[in-house]
């Protein structure tokens, strides 16, 4: 089964937007925990939910055509983007367990996708 470039683009975009949604949710969660004014945390959480919905719509459209072997692992790339966003925005360090663990996860999702094709 060949995978159209449009599907690849849609799923890649879905993973990117999904990871940015998590950044906004984390920002809102931190502000809520720190007892900031509702306007301070409602905006990022609302924005995160909007991006989350957009991401899942793109994902549904993306996986309608094409091989899941190709498309599945690309969704898990969202975790990789998030590793960089988390370091950039929240000073969360890279460490060995995150890098090894995430590599195993991406590899695992790849194998699940292979099994689905």
């Amino acid at each position, binding site marked *: 089964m060949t995978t159209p470039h449009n599907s690849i683009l849609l799923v890649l975009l879905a993973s990117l937007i999904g*990871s940015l949604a*998590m*950044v906004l*949710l*984390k920002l*809102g*969660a*931190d502000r*809520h*925990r720190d007892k900031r004014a509702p306007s301070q945390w409602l905006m990022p*959480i609302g924005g*995160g*939910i909007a991006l*989350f*919905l957009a991401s*899942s719509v793109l994902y*549904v459209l993306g996986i*309608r055509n094409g091989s899941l072997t190709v498309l599945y692992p690309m969704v*898990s790339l*969202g*975790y990789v983007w*998030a*590793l960089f*966003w*988390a*370091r950039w925005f*929240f*000073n*969360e*360090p890279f*460490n*060995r*367990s*995150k890098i*090894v*663990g*995430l*590599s*195993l*996860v*991406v*590899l*695992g*999702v*790849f*194998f*699940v*996708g*292979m*099994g*689905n094709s």
Partner: protein
Amino acid sequence: MLEPNVITPGYATIQQLEVSNPVVRSEPRRGVQDTSLASIALVVFSTLIAAAAQILLRFGADNLGDGGLTGILTNVSLIGGYTCLGVNTMLVVIALRGGQLSVLYPIMALGYVWVTILAPLYFHEIINPSKMVGLVLIIAGVSFIGAGSRA
């Protein structure tokens, strides 16, 4: 007289201790959030809801047809799927208050595990050796990340 909270000359600063003492250095750095066990448990639970959402959305997408906007808005599976996504999002936000994004987000990959195990019940799929290997790798990876965050 010295106040009790004033740093006494002659005492090493935390930075100096970090250089000279590897045990102190292994302590979490200030400013970096720890990830609580409760947050990890909540995210693991949320992946079950996320898996239900995935399966409902898949049902919905399969039954979408050419009904246009009305077809989407009256599709019970899609509505159920997005409701689960909403509940999932709420749980995730609560969990994110108590932990690192780069720890908690990859744990959500457990959703793949539940979906792969549940899909054969609903979609005439099978769990073949490749999927089995994938599930083991995902569980190992998530365990690695979770254990590393508690070390």
